[in-house]
């Protein structure tokens, strides 16, 4: 009984130690850093609302010159390593989303890499 109590105490102490240190914050690798729309604090909390509002404006009303643009985010914030916002813990979108444990499904349809050149009609 005493042994079991000791074991429980040790486990609790260990988990407290881990909590005190916290999960390490992601270190993001960005090719062209800088502030485009708002401060990082505001963007962390509101980017999803901004993007959701603008996606409807762009798709349904054809408004394509907004500062808020998923492609715009990707063009600057893709990593230097692989030119993408996905790929590992230091990529802009994936790094933060795995830190916050939020599912990221934009890129099932959207292109996560910067610098794509559309082919166009002419060969």
């Amino acid at each position, binding site marked *: 009984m005493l042994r079991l109590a000791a074991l429980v105490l040790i486990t609790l102490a260990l988990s407290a130690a881990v909590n005190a240190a916290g999960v390490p914050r992601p270190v993001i690798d960005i090719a062209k850093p800088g502030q485009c729309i708002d401060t990082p604090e505001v963007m962390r909390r509101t980017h999803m609302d901004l993007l959701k509002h603008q*996606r409807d*404006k762009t*798709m*349904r*009303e*054809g*408004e*394509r*010159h907004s500062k808020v643009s998923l*492609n715009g985010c*990707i063009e600057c914030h893709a990593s230097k390593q692989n030119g993408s916002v996905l790929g590992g813990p230091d990529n802009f979108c994936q790094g933060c989303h795995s830190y916050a444990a939020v599912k990221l499904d934009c890129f*099932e*349809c*959207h*292109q996560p890499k910067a610098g*794509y050149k*559309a*082919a*166009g*009609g*002419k*060969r």
Partner: protein
Amino acid sequence: MSEVTTSRRAFIGISATAAAATAGFVALAPGVKLMDLAQAHADSKGASSKVRWGMLIDTTKCATGCSDCVSACARENAIEPGSGRPAQSSQWIRKIELKEKKGGHRELSLPMLCQHCANPPCVDVCPTGASFQRADGIVLVDRHICIGCRYCVMACPYQARSFVHEPLHNQNPEVPRGQGCVESCTLCVHRVDKGESPACVESCTHQAMLFGDLNNPQSEIAQRVATVASSQIRADLRLDPGVRYQGI
């Protein structure tokens, strides 16, 4: 009092014209008239209900065996053949070869794509509102709310829609596409919004495809439609397609 109102109206009218002219000159490119810009260029304002985008396809110029439009569409919209299952890959535009059995055995060939109907049945049947029509007549699928039920595929009399069966990669950033959604020709809406033509029209070396604003009497397409006999496929369904064919 009424005099003041009149002059104020006139003033507002003049200022608006001046503002439009200034904006026009800024974006004016060689060969682009101010008229075109005001009527058809949806660049900054977005889709306008004054515009009705359409296409006129001259089947007498369309060459049998040529599929430049199909490959240009695939390049621009990053449509790759499925993994070894061509029957499952998306088809936004296809070539159809026709042969008249009687008479002189006349043969003709034409591209078939989403007809961008004014009364689209795909929009009528969509249970989520994902299938929609822009103010300028372009019919699109909102993939954010498409549930992949494929009612629209069944409803379309032109068989213009495809379902994406497999995960996709390397999309054009301006043309997001993905598994589990229905899709069809977008009339290259991302290019049209920039003032360009659809990729298929640009690629046609036989000048068989003409793109433009059917509502603008000054546009080449409206003038051709007004002077040359053209028809809509299955006009009896009264869907009023924006794509018209000449010589069928």
